[in-house]
């Protein structure tokens, strides 16, 4: 089973129908374990109980960048390999990524209020994540503005790849501009700065959120494929109503197979 085999939407639908329940179950179990561990993690000696926001905030922030990375790879799939499902993957990922980014910003600002004394600060990390959020919204607007999916796909792919420049800027913003947001402490040279009692729940939550993204992404891709099928069926129906004679004259099978192939 390679990536090319999945180019057939029907095969993809069949495979994901089998995989999705397992993925969903794994997500729920890991989320439950992670939330339990996070709830029973010790309070921080400085931050008190508010440190528990970290277990939601950090996975969301990681995922907000991870999703754009997935979309960039899918965009390469659209532009370079012309994989038929690549643009479906890119389109389905955008709203999920926007949601993760929004949650990262929201939890971060809720955490910032007791810790920094402000909900929002024009700090380099916060600003670059806000730009990421705006670019997600722009991409979604682009998908909505164009009715032909393949034309929108290529435009969105170019824009996604250009926007990928923002990812390293977000990652290293805390090192380049030494401002309010703390520098990386989980993954860094010389081992993690976090204590084990915080690190393990955090990693469990990160894996759980990644699985959550995979589940939502595959489900959204299925929906998108089905939506495109409905659209082409509706267009066939409309053309049958508009040109009943031509359709009856024998070109029906031909155009029907073309439309189904496009879907």
């Amino acid at each position, binding site marked *: 089973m390679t990536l090319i085999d999945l180019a057939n939407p029907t095969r993809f639908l069949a495979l994901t129908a089998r995989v999705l329940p397992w993925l969903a179950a794994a997500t729920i179990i890991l989320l439950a374990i992670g939330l339990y561990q996070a709830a029973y993690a010790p309070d921080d000696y400085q931050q008190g109980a508010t440190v528990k926001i970290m277990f939601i905030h950090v996975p969301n922030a990681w995922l907000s960048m991870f999703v754009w990375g997935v979309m960039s790879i899918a965009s390469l799939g659209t*532009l370079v390999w012309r994989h038929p499902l690549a643009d479906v993957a890119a389109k389905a990922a955008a709203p999920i990524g926007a949601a993760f980014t929004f949650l990262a910003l929201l939890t971060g600002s809720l955490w910032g209020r007791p810790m920094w004394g402000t909900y929002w600060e024009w700090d380099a990390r916060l*600003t670059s994540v806000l*730009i990421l959020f*705006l*670019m997600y*919204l*722009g991409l979604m*607007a*682009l998908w909505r*503005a*164009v009715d032909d999916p393949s*034309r*929108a796909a*290529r*435009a969105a*792919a*170019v*824009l996604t*790849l*250009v*926007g990928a*420049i923002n990812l390293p*800027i977000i990652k290293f913003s805390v090192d380049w501009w030494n401002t309010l947001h703390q520098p990386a402490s989980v993954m860094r040279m010389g081992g993690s700065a976090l204590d084990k009692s915080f690190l393990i729940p955090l990693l469990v939550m990160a894996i759980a959120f990644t699985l959550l993204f995979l589940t939502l992404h595959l489900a959204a891709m299925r929906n998108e494929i089905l939506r495109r099928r409905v659209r082409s069926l509706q267009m066939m129906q409309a053309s049958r109503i508009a040109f009943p004679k031509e359709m009856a004259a024998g070109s029906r099978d031909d155009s029907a197979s073309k439309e189904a192939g496009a879907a």
Partner: protein
Amino acid sequence: MTALAALIRRDIRIALRVGGGALIGVLFFLTVVVLMPFAVGPDLALLSRLGPAILWLGALLASLLTLDRLFMADHEDGSLDLITMSRTPLELACAAKALAHWLAAGLPLIVATPVLGLLLNLDMIATAAVALTLLAGTPALTFTGMIGAALAVTLHRGGLLMAVLVLPLSIPVLIFGVAASQAVIVGPMTFGAPFSILCALSLVSLVIGPFAAAASLRHGLD
């Protein structure tokens, strides 16, 4: 080379003649800057503090609004198809078009800056700093905006969608442009650091813009 020079000369001529619309950008810049004192009040001290930010915002919006004609007019009269099919690499042709657009629409903004600086109560050094940062930063605006212009022409949608797509990409330019000019006026940072980053942003967009625009034209035109 001669083909690119001819393309640049042609684009500048079209932009400066009747129907070109390059100088409308300057007029828009002037109008935006004149609007600001009405919004924040005619307090000269406040205006001189906000001056660089106002000038940068005006220049950003003016260069954005003139951009959607970059490929649209050529698409309408068919010359864009000739450019994409010609033997000159499309990336170079895009870069030449953006350069011509910057010469016709971006440079006048910088020339107009000293006059507008007077209106905003900026002294000579501050005006010079803003003009210098605009000189270094507006190419970045043009070359990243070109990506949006190419998307707009392939999608047959311009206007607001393009602004939504391009404006987030221009935020870093705005940040460092204003930071460099503020550094001259109030300190405490040095002028050099943000100015070098601004130049770097321009150089990076000089490389990325033509490739992205050419890719979207190549994949999007039919």
